[in-house]
């Protein structure tokens, strides 16, 4: 098999995220490409055993892995509610709903491992079953292989002499399930044990019991009863040689900033306020004081960006991180950074909107807010990461573009990239492109003013407090193009608007050209941006068509028009109602675009894209 999709699901207290992460990392270490999708409820702890409390973690592993997969080959269902949610998908709370191939989270020939101990009458009642036979009630097809395992009983048996209390014993059920899955995929168990030792290094008393349950689960599957064949999948042959790790998007983003600060010789400053799904960036950077990172957890979103603007004025690589609602609150201060022409990185980990919307779900609906959502003529650079791992590259790139062009750069990621994990080839700092901040030439001392700019690039020269002979007053008011002081002169204002615009437009000369993936000779071109690259790549392969995927959005790559106009049929695919399509129409006069849009808080389904394009 080329690749296999595994989904772990259970109650939000069952440790499914940890189990999924461990299995994914084990697979990655063994040479498989991985792509993961954590899928957890918004409630921190919904009532145990209920449909609303089901937490899932899906991983796709093998070679040629672009997405976490539409549907699972193997499901681990730790309780009756999880089985129902996996079987019915988004229809899980429709009374009387039955298995439907278009909704189900697993394939018709999937293997489902269930904990039979969690299917008591009480469990079935909590999960709103009407009968005492959930498999019949859900009409799960016979082609699906159900593997019943008494996970709870086996866990209790395994730990009966451990001295642990019942509650702690039950918490280890996930390790029994992991042991079984490790056997199923021929995963060597010693690496899993190393993981556990690392995970519990601060609670050493928990290492032995967890290792025992894991081992017992593996042996149980190996020795006795399981009537299934182990699965062998192909290792990746597409990966560049190097040293790899598995990294989540938010962590990759944080590390990209750390690398950029060191490369640029700047202190890294983050002003931020907790918001799902961006908080991990702040938490990761707050833990990186060893790298000299300064984090201010501000009193609100506005203060988050404003402390960053202050740090930028003072000469730092200044960053603020947030999600959609926070970006709205930061608009005015981002405008200040545009007007004052200061470098600022703004990270928007998009989530479902508008307003509070779907805080834990993914969407691409902040695009136009990022490009246009400020008062006045207020251009900023907008870029987007497209995989969890390349959040590193684009966070680094956001910092480079901000520091070199004296402009705010908005980096768009989203829930899917932020929480998902991918394989990341670990670079050396020396491999990364140089970053040359737009520092003022020393000879300007004594006659500097804050309007001085490079005549070619229009980039303003940066002088920072502490530098003798460069004292100046920066402003959010319009400034005179020559003297840098407050000006309300009409011609001057127009000139300054154009200067700021030109500066941002000219960034197009310093970013890569757009390239076409898939089959460039096809008549059909899929177009996407940001986190959908994997799904669109998989769809383009199946359709044997071309794909133009954008990481640089404002400005667009210089060859955009030329590339797009080569194709007869262009379909712009996005997780919104067509924001990028509208933006392209406004930039390329007369272009004819079809659209494929999904706005369900979930990543694309490759299946649905393919069937839609084939129509």
């Amino acid at each position, binding site marked *: 098999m080329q690749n296999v999709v595994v989904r772990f699901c259970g109650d939000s207290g069952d440790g499914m995220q940890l189990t999924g992460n461990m299995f994914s*990392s084990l697979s*990655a270490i063994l*040479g498989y490409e991985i792509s993961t999708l954590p899928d957890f409820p918004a409630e921190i702890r919904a009532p145990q055993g209920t449909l609303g409390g089901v937490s899932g973690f899906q991983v796709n592993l093998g070679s040629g892995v672009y997405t976490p997969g539409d549907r699972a080959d193997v499901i681990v269902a730790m309780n009756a509610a999880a089985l129902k949610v996996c079987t019915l998908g988004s229809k899980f709370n429709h009374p009387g709903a039955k298995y439907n191939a278009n909704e189900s989270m697993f394939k018709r020939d999937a293997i489902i491992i269930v904990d039979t101990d969690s299917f008591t009458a009480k469990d079935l009642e909590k999960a709103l079953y009407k009968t005492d036979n959930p498999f019949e009630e859900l009409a799960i097809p016979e082609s699906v292989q159900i593997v019943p395992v008494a996970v709870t009983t086996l866990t209790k048996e395994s730990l009966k002499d451990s001295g642990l209390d019942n509650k702690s014993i039950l918490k280890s059920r996930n390790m029994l399930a992991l042991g079984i899955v490790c056997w199923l995929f021929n995963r060597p168990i010693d690496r899993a044990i190393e993981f556990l030792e*690392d995970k519990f290094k601060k609670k050493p008393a928990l290492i032995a019991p967890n290792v025992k349950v894991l081992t017992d689960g593996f042996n149980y599957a190996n020795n006795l009863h399981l009537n299934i064949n182990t699965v062998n999948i192909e290792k*990746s042959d597409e*990966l560049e*040689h*190097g040293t*790899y*790790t*598995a990294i989540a998007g938010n962590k990759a983003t944080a*590390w990209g900033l*750390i*690398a950029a600060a*060191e490369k640029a010789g700047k*202190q890294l*400053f983050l*002003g931020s306020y907790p918001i799902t799904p961006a908080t991990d960036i702040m938490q990761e950077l707050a833990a*990186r*004081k*060893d*790298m*000299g*990172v*300064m984090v*201010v957890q*501000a*009193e*609100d979103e*506005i*203060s988050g960006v*404003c*402390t*960053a*603007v*202050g*740090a*930028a*004025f*003072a*000469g*730092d690589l*200044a960053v603020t991180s947030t999600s959609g609602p926070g970006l709205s609150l930061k608009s*005015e*201060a981002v*405008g200040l950074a545009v007007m*004052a022409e200061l470098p600022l990185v703004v990270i928007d980990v998009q989530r479902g909107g508008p307003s509070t919307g779907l805080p834990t779900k993914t969407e691409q609906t902040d695009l136009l807010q990022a490009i246009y959502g400020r008062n006045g003529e207020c251009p900023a650079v907008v870029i987007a990461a497209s995989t969890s791992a390349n959040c590193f590259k684009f966070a680094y790139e956001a910092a480079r573009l901000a520091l070199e062009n004296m402009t705010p750069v908005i980096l768009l990621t989203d829930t899917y990239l932020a929480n998902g994990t991918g394989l990341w080839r*670990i670079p*050396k*700092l020396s491999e990364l492109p140089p970053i040359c901040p737009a520092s003022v030439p020393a000879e300007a001392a004594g006659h500097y003013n804050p309007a001085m700019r490079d005549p070619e690039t229009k980039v303003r020269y940066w002088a920072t*407090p*502490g530098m*003798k002979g460069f*004292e*100046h*007053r*920066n*402003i*959010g008011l319009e400034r005179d193009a020559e003297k840098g*002081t407050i000006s309300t002169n009409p011609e001057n204002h127009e000139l300054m608007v154009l200067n700021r615009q030109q500066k941002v437009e000219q960034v197009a000369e310093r970013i890569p050209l757009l390239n076409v993936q898939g089959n460039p000779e096809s008549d059909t071109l899929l177009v996407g941006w940001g986190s959908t690259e994997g799904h669109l790549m998989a769809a383009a392969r199946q359709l044997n068509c071309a794909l133009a995927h954008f990481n640089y959005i404002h400005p667009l790559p210089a060859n955009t028009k030329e590339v797009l106009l080569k194709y007869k049929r262009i379909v712009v695919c996005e997780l919104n109602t067509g924001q990028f399509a509208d933006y392209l129409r406004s930039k390329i006069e007369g272009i004819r675009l079809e659209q494929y849009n999904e706005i369900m808080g979930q990543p694309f389904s490759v299946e649905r894209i393919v069937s839609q394009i084939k129509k």
Partner: protein
Amino acid sequence: MEAQDFKSDQYVRFCPGCGDHAITMALQKAMAQIGIPTHQTVVISGIGCSSRMPHYLNTYGFNTIHGRGAAIATGVKTSHPELNVWQMTGDGDCLAIGGNHFIHSLRRNVDLNICLFNNRIYGLTKGQYSPTSPKGFVSKSSPFGTVERPFIPAELVMGARGTFFARTLDVDMPTTVKCMVEANNHKGASVIECLVNCVIFNNGTHAWIADRETRAERTILLHQGEKMIFGKDLNKGLALDYSSGMFPKLIIVPANDERVLTHDATTADPTLHRMLALMGQKHFTGEQTGDDTLPVALGVIRNVEEETYNDAVNRQIDEVRAKAKAHCFDELTQTLEQWAM
């Protein structure tokens, strides 16, 4: 250094007769006395008449957006603690739109010198009531009188656990300069409430205490370590009266009374500082009229040392770095679980 060194080449555009002129001159004098060079001094402001100040000072300056000065100044001072950072703000910028950033900069004790120009009116938008306008105040946006209860800035500062509060009058240059210098010497968030007159929209708002005729009787200038004495003939003093029930209250006694209090701005307990700061304030909140009350306190009322936010943040980074295994990106990546492919 001379006050002249801190003057920029910009024409000062405050209205003729505005109290802000005096504050500008006081600040230039204070900065000269302090002696920190212009290139190491940063003045941050928001929006409003007071926020024009950075343009008139030959230092680093940033005239930003409405209400956010405290947050931006926090970013400057925390990231670059070696700089001397001032914030210029007004009663609207600081206490209305910027209230949240103001209280949190005080709570954190960021080492900023915050000059709060209080003229009890919105001047730049031409005459609406502010959060310090007295109840019943008639303005363009309150034609029938405001129904709002105003803030007393000192009370807010102490409620936010502020470590330094001084109050001064625009017409009293020496006290203003002294308060600014003291604020700068204080490590932590320092608030100087400058009572300034808006000659156009709120003329005479502080006249009750600012007039030469009555000032000596209606104000008391507090000096650290000195008896609390006031009056034209310095014949009155302040004392605590414990006779009126559970809580003592401040009373006026003859200057030679042995109960006259000695001012100590450095006590950690803010109870007496708060009582002093609230004296005579009901004249300004619209809750009381007449002149038979306690004098308004001027000078440095509270001046307490606690570790500053900027020091604590930088100290923690230094401590972690001293013990850390990784100090640069290439060392950091070595700490990851990783494998060759």
